């Protein structure tokens, strides 16, 4: 029971990050690697705030704000300096590594004695579920607004947005800000949940986000009435389930990144409608000729 509860908690807590990645990867069509930096940024800001004695909810909001800023920088680099989307993400990620170290002062900050959002006696799963579900519904609502439509259209057909008299640059920057804000929020929750913040905790975060999105989509695509944000949350839980089982099977935790990579590859291959484990068809069955008219021209 504890095993499953743990999976659900982790799945939903990282699900907030997955929803952030969903905005950039799925809606905006922008592979944003700054996620690997803004996730520990959220954790670092939270840890420093908690050490300073700032209340946990304020600290969480600060973390969200720091994420907004990080995403804004990525967008600014891409839009104003015309740096490619991949590279602007990488630059921000690298820069944030040093910034995170500066914020925390050292590579690892334990939070064992600090008050966190989980110290009010409620079960952690309840607090986590409230956050994840709130973010999901807020995002669902946001995507139905006029502004949300424009973000969707920007990923879909930038020319249309320009034709509507709107600067796509600003739209991209705002979408990246919201995305990284959610990622940092998730980082903040994780730091408070596991009661420490580590500068290396963001490594591979983007791949994990993609894995969850693709995983969720591959499995729930054919189920009607499941909206993409729900798929992303479910995907995150499924991803955590599969890694938990990998650990149960006796793989050492150091193998987890490789397992993640394999999950992504498998999910992508399945999504393409190709089963990588099926052999090539060597024989084809004969049949009626397609042309029934035997007269020549």
């Amino acid at each position, binding site marked *: 029971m504890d095993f499953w509860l743990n999976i659900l908690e982790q799945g939903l807590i990282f699900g907030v990050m997955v929803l952030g990645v969903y905005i950039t990867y799925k809606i905006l069509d922008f592979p944003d690697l700054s996620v690997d930096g803004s996730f520990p940024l959220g954790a670092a800001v939270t840890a420093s705030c908690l050490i300073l004695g700032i209340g946990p909810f304020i600290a969480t909001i600060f973390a969200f704000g720091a994420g907004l800023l990080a995403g804004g920088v990525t967008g600014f680099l891409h839009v104003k300096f015309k740096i490619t989307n991949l590279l602007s993400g990488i630059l921000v990620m690298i820069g944030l590594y040093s910034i995170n170290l500066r914020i925390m002062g050292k590579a690892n900050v334990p939070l064992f004695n600090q008050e966190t959002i989980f110290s009010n006696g409620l079960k952690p799963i309840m607090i986590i579920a409230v956050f994840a579900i709130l973010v999901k519904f807020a995002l669902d609502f946001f995507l*139905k*607004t*006029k502004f949300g439509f424009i973000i969707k*259209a920007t990923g879909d057909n930038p020319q249309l947005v320009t034709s509507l008299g709107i600067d796509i640059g600003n739209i991209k920057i705002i979408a990246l800000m919201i995305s990284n804000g959610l990622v940092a929020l998730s980082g903040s929750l994780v730091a408070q949940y596991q009661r420490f913040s580590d500068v290396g905790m963001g490594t591979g975060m983007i791949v994990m986000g993609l894995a969850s999105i693709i995983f969720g989509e591959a499995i729930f695509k054919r189920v009607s009435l499941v909206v993409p944000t729900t798929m992303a949350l479910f995907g995150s839980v499924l991803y955590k389930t599969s890694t938990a089982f990998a650990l149960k099977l006796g793989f050492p935790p150091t193998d987890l990144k490789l397992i993640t990579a394999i999950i992504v590859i498998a999910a992508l291959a399945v999504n393409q409608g190709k089963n990588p484990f099926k052999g090539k068809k060597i024989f084809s069955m004969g049949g009626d000729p397609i042309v029934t008219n035997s007269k020549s021209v």
Partner: protein
Amino acid sequence: MLRIRNLCKTFHPNTVNQKTVFNKFSLDVEQGDFITIIGSNGAGKSTLLNIISGCIEVDEGSIRLKNKDISNEPEFKRTRDIGRVFQDPSMGTSPSMNIIENLSMAMNKGKKFDLSMGASKKDIPLFEKLVSKIHLGLENQLDTKVGLLSGGQRQSLSLLMATASNPHILLLDEHTAALDPKTSERIIDLTQKIVSERKITTLMVTHNLNQAISLGNRLLMMHGGKIVLDIKGEEKKSLTIEKLLGCFEKIQSDDLLSDRLLFS
């Protein structure tokens, strides 16, 4: 209405690929004009539309739209007064969104895109009426994703969307070239209907001489970045394909002649 003065544009200046498309090009368009533009490939027709809409920056010259100098405005600011339909049917719509969402965005052009609801149930009868005009049965599938529609359906929708907000000027860049003849005819009918009903000033590039003659009140033939033929009013009404082809060939042969002289 639209005044273009001394437009100059050279692509890849100071390289071996240098190509001067326009040298001191000028054009006046009156309010309510429907101008068809023909000309061989490379004559600068599409470049002209791209320059008006701000896709391509000019080297020199001024463009005034409704007494406002727009030469230095970025594309997204100019497009607020300009409607445009491209040759590629996928350029004018958002494929992963449905017809209602696409039309809602188009209707909201010029207003704020804020956090109010993007589409409203109240608009559905209006949209049904709007799309029933194009007689493609789209009124029964308003919640279909646009990506699933055929090229002709999408292009009709693009046309509706481009004109939804009453632009000052409508630019049509060979907007029927990618469609089959029958659909193409339909779109042309729709274009004529919308333009004449709403009296939108229109520039239409086409390779179809029939369309160029039958539509609009003015015809421009472009060649090598210049207007070589400008036919309006009564003269336009009596124009036939033979006459037009005659002019076309005369210009072409002039070209050949000079080439021949050069290389002989």
